[in-house]
């Protein structure tokens, strides 16, 4: 018996808990649990509930008993069947209070929900917000990605040696982090443990929100019951002793038992026949979910559609009997590996498509063996090229002749297919890529941001979780009568939309069709953001494995209201493009292919180990791949330092680096009056010369918290109240903790509604987060209660008033300093600030001149002052210089005599600079702009469109990079290389070797 001595009194009571993926049922008799059962419901919520009750007919028949339903998917059932409903966290709290009264905190992870209940010091129950990714479902999804069962994942995790940082916010982010690790050959055991750690971090950061999880902690729910590795990560992270970490035998059933206890108390009685009759009736009730038109009205309509698309083919011929040259294209994508071999007529003589089973190197090795076997003596491998996430790794491993960025590969393929193509949309396993083609070159590239990827592999995981393979699942949707409207945001939201649909009793068919529609809407509205088909183009080619799914293709045409072309080889286009590219390159060079020989392939080995680079403050996690003959390939690095001296390239001017060096050079003065701490985050990044000078002048030793890093962030993670705020804000908590540790007399971070008026905009606000974060810190950081935290409201545009206010404020909270002294300090501070800003402009000018003298491209890596932080921007500036760009900041170029005119209210100081910087890039052929956007920055939803418009109105490319806690530099590299590729292509189109220098 899993639990007894419950205070339910005499009699029988039934508790049902219907969660997002499973249903649980318990029967309690005279205070003891006499029956329990746990089953996946595969979205058949009502039928499953009914079945499970019918199974225990002998236990219930002939009795009068009380019953209650609980759980996130249980509400609809309860309503429809008129059974008592109890909120699941409430139910769980009830049971814990009875069974384990000295529990301090309960942590429960379910299929998609995470909950933390605090019992001591005021009952407080928290559930994951709409952004926090699922947990059980997340683990399932990650296991699929690693191609192991959840049980194997757990076993693997126990053997880990090292933890990699994996984003803890939502599943999609995590996936983006895991994929490169896999591609780089990191050990599965380490990845498995890191996945669990991500779940732990998410629970702590997302739910505890400033309250510490300590004392006696009880862990409930499926994942925590089954996954030993997850338990271990929780216990270690929370530093729990053995007696304080409780893993009860009824972990799976706490909610169901709670529901039964609640039912017993409420005494709403029923009997077996009534209950079953009501549930049966409920299964036939009308639905409330919003539904869309069916994809196809009839079988005939589908057949016409299929016939139209069947015309879009590429000739595929047998290799038998062919003698001559062949070119190899490999597309080592995020979730799939594709290989294509073409003959002299550009016909496909060999093709291969499979899910990457975690190790792309092995797949490609086997494929090469196969190709060599097939080629025999009559076919010569004349050239080879590789594209995709695994490009570098595969290229090094097998000495592939050429590498190209995947956008260029897809373009090459699409153009071969339809020379007039003007828009390409590729939806792959986890990325959406699309680009417009203008004047025969790529005009603008859009990639999905980390929050909305998921795409193809999402359907796959979903299909599996419902017990189908992806093909069957998708086909089900084709003739769905009432597709469910599931929204168009990230997959996490879709999960809960599905939950809602399940609640309303939607069928698998309707959900499948709904998912296809969501993916399409995601691509069109979220990534491309096009209001109509005309905004995309006339000749649209769609490709990528996801479009092989007819339901997705149909939804796309439906939403656009236009027919598109889907090549039959939609899933192979990257590899096909690479093969064409290989051919062009090898014919241009006229030399034989350098690819690994048949003999060498026989002895090919591959080993990988993990290491950490200590070259700079980024401390990149490196993966060192070792190939035959001791040849090494290092991945995971942002810059060339990890590669040692031989890999070093010339150092190009980098304004980000310049600004950092200036900050690092600041010296703390003498502590005559005491010490003041300045957190180097948000607005302080720019105001540091002002406040450093001000306080040094007044006789304070100024301690700066320094640049951010992961450890600093985790230090403050516990007190973040809003997990959807931007990373630059959240990292502020760590800076405060750092200063507190340093033992300063006071910490200073002012509240500034208005920033400095630079006369380039209509108004000069700060964003609400930069302006008022002090208020949040004061209210949420317990450690601040013992520190003198100074956060006056100031106006920086009137030095006299500024001095008066600082004098008044310091007198009240710190020290009575004569006004004359404060005024002198304020004036000196403002002077230092302006001199600093001028220096940046001057240095920017120098960098531009240097670039022009040396024939280098200039890149404005634009963002906010705090984007120079190595942890916030993840060293993207270094990546830019390593790709050959002279890199400058937006503020170094923003002071243009005529401010640019924009279509929005230009009312923020930082953002006005962006517009001017964009205008500069728009007017100079040798200057590009890449905009860094922090995830969660609401204001950038406005600025990005404007910046894009400024650039595109001058025929320039717009590139946006979204950054967060963890950013996959691989994806950033693709964007920057695509930009470079497009620039080169344009240069060639226009008969220039490179852009003309302005």
């Amino acid at each position: 018996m899993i639990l007894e001595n419950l205070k339910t009194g005499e009699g029988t009571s039934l508790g049902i808990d219907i969660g997002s993926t499973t249903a649980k049922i318990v029967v309690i008799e005279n205070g003891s649990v006499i029956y329990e059962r746990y089953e996946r419901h595969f979205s058949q919520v009502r039928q499953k509930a009914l079945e499970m009750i019918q199974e225990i007919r002998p236990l219930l028949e002939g009795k009068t008993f009380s019953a209650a339903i609980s759980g996130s998917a249980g509400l609809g059932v309860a309503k429809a069947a008129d059974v008592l409903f109890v909120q699941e966290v409430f139910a769980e709290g009830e049971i814990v209070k009875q069974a384990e009264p000295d529990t301090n905190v309960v942590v429960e992870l379910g299929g998609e929900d995470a909950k933390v209940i605090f019992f001591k010091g005021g009952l407080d129950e928290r559930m994951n917000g709409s952004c926090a990714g699922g947990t059980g479902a997340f683990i399932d999804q990650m296991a699929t990605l690693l191609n192991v069962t959840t049980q194997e994942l757990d076993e693997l995790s126990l053997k880990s040696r090292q933890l990699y940082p994996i984003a803890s916010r939502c599943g999609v982010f995590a996936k983006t982090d895991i994929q490169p690790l896999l591609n780089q050959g990191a050990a599965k055991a380490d990845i498995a443990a890191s996945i669990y750690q991500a779940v732990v971090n998410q629970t702590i950061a997302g739910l505890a929100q400033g309250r510490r999880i300590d004392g006696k902690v009880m862990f409930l729910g499926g994942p925590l019951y089954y996954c030993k590795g997850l338990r271990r990560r929780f216990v270690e992270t929370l530093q729990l002793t053995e007696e304080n970490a409780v893993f009860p035998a009824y972990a799976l059933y706490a909610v169901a038992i709670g529901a039964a206890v609640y039912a017993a108390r409420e005494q709403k009685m029923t009997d077996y026949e009534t209950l079953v009759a009501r549930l049966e009736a409920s299964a036939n009730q009308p639905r409330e979910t919003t539904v869309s038109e069916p994809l196809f009205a009839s079988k005939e309509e589908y057949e016409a559609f299929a016939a139209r698309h069947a015309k879009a083919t590429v000739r595929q011929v047998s290799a038998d009997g062919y003698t001559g040259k062949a070119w190899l294209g490999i597309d080592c994508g995020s979730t799939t590996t594709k290989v294509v071999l073409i003959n002299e007529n550009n016909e496909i003589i060999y093709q291969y498509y499979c899910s990457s089973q975690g190790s792309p190197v092995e797949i490609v090795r086997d494929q090469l063996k196969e190709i060599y076997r097939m080629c025999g003596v009559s076919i010569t491998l004349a050239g080879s090229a590789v594209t995709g996430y695994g490009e570098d790794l595969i290229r090094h491993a097998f000495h592939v002749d050429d590498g190209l960025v995947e956008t260029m590969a897809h373009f090459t393929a699409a153009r071969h297919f339809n020379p007039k193509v003007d828009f390409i949309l590729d939806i792959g396993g986890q990325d959406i890529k699309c680009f417009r083609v203008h004047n025969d070159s790529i005009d603008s590239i859009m990639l999905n941001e980390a929050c909305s990827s998921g795409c193809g592999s999402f359907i796959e995981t979903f299909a599996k979780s419902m017990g189908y393979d992806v093909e069957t699942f998708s086909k089900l949707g084709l003739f769905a009568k009432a597709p469910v409207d599931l929204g168009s945001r990230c997959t996490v939201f879709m999960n809960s939309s599905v939950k809602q649909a399940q609640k309303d009793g939607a069928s698998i068919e309707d959900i499948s069709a709904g998912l296809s529609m969501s993916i399409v809407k995601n691509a069109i509205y979220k990534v491309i953001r096009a209001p109509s088909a005309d905004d995309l183009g006339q000749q649209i080619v769609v490709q990528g494995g996801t479009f092989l799914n007819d339901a997705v293709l149909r939804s796309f045409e439906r939403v656009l209201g236009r027919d598109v072309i889907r090549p039959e080889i939609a899933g192979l286009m990257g590899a096909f493009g690479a093969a064409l590219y290989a051919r062009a390159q090898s014919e241009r060079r006229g030399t034989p292919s350098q690819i690994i020989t048949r003999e060498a392939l026989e002895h090919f080995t591959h080993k990988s180990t993990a290491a950490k680079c200590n070259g700079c403050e980024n401390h990149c996690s490196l993966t060192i791949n070792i190939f035959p003959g001791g040849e090494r390939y290092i991945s995971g690095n942002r810059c060339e330092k990890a590669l040692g001296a031989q890999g070093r390239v010339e150092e190009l001017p980098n304004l980000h680096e310049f600004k950092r060096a200036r900050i690092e050079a600041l010296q703390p003065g003498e502590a005559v009056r005491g010490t003041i701490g300045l957190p180097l985050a948000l607005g302080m990044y720019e105001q540091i010369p002002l406040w450093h000078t001000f306080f040094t002048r007044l006789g304070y030793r100024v301690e700066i918290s320094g640049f951010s890093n992961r450890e600093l962030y985790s230090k403050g993670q516990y007190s973040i109240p809003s997990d959807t705020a931007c990373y630059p804000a959240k990292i502020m908590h760590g800076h405060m903790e750092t200063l507190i540790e340093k033992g300063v007399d006071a910490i200073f971070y002012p509240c500034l509604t208005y920033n400095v008026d630079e006369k380039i905009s209509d108004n000069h606000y700060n964003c609400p987060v930069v302006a008022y974060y002090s208020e949040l810190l004061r209210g949420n950081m317990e450690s601040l209660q013992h520190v003198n935290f100074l956060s006056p409201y100031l106006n920086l545009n009137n030095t006299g008033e500024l001095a008066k206010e600082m004098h008044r404020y310091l007198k009240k909270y710190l020290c009575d300093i004569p006004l004359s002294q404060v005024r002198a300090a304020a004036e000196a501070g403002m002077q230092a600030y302006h001199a600093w800003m001028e220096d940046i402009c001057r240095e920017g000018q120098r960098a531009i001149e240097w670039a022009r003298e040396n024939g280098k491209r200039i890149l404005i890596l634009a963002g906010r002052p705090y984007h120079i932080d190595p942890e916030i921007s993840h060293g993207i500036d270094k990546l830019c210089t390593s790709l050959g760009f002279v890199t400058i900041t937006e503020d170094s170029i923003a002071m243009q005599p005529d401010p640019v005119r924009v279509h929005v209210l230009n009312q923020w100081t930082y953002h006005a600079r962006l517009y001017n910087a964009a205008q500069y890039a728009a007017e100079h052929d040798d200057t590009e702009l890449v905009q860094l956007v922090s995830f969660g920055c609401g204001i950038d939803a406005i600025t990005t469109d404007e910046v894009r418009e400024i650039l595109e109105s001058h025929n320039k490319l717009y590139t946006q990079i979204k950054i967060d806690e963890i950013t996959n530099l691989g994806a950033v590299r693709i964007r920057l290389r695509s930009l470079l590729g497009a620039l080169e292509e344009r240069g060639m189109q226009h008969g220039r070797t490179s852009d003309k220098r302005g």
Partner: protein
Amino acid sequence: MAGHPTNAAKEAERVIFTKEMKQTHTILVPTMLPVHFKLLIKIFETYGYKVELLENKGKPVRDKGLKYVHNDTCYPAQLVIGQMIDALESGKYDRNKVALLITQTGGGCRASNYIHLLRKAMKKAGYGDIPVISFNVAGLEKNPGFQVSLPMIMQLLHAVLYGDLFMLIGNQCRPYELHPGDTDKLIDTWVQKLCRQLSHGRHTKKMVQENYRAILNDFAAIPRSKEKKVRVGIVGEIFVKFSPLGNNDLEQFLLSEGAEPVMPGLMDFLLMKLYDKVVEFKMYRLHPAKAAGAKIIYDVMLKRQLEYIEAIKSHGVFDAPTPFERIKALRHGLISMGVKMGEGWLLPAEMLELVESGVKNIVCAQPFGCLPNHIVGKGMMKPIKEMHPDVNIVAIDYDMGATAINQENRIKLMLANARGRL
């Protein structure tokens, strides 16, 4: 380098709502507070405008929002713009004789940019020639054909207070009415009556007082049960807080769960925005003349609010709201008045006001990723709970992708706890 057009040029590009248009054009107004807005519109009509309140909702509105507005922009912008474009596309209006009206708050929050996002969206949808009127108190954009005079402002104030009154006592009656529908029927009757009155020109102080009394008497006469119900306060970002379109009919949901919604009025928000001019002068010595002007109107508004509160108090049947000056005082020790963006300091002050009037359960509603609410909403929950350990606050995010079930589940959890304490 080509010279850039100046801001004056940008201003010229805007489609102006001319004096002539006042006669010919119908102004479409998005819904936020159904009852308030009906009365407000009546006043505009009295002053010669043709105005229509948009009541279209549901999937088409959401779809248009998604289609024409940046998906990372706040949810209210997506809904409001979606509603307007959906209305234009409905074919109900002569596109040459229609204009749109949208409020512009003019603060550091991105909400000040709604009007520009609306214009962008209209351009994309092919309606770039339709005038968009900014309704603002910050003096941002002006239109010769749309001018709000001082007497009109006073009339509008009355309408706001009437609206607040219906919302206040409506919420106190509806959960307890013995005949379902009584309260809403009475509100309808009164709105019609008031509309007639308002269209007859001047609305004197005496008339207002008489109306207050008559309204209170009529509502007090609704047969109600004495049952004790959980009272749930609603605070949040202004649109999502008030608009049923924005908050998935939150009031209705609370009612269906057997709770009594308590919604702080619109007047406090207007007072806060107006008083901010005074704060800016006190704190930063900015715009003395504006501050002085604002103070005069503020004092008048404050007086009207006090009369309104007094009317409810002296009538004695319903719980009266808290005067603004008291709400202002409540924020001491929690947050500075310098926090002005979005709902600013008022939001946490309203939570404290609710607690003070015995409402211990609070829903804090905001659009997903709302910037000011990181600070004034979610950022203030912990300190407020420390001041009042018995208070139960739940933050609910609203956006296109969030489903009602997640939101409702969290509210249900709050209610389950609250019932345990009743």
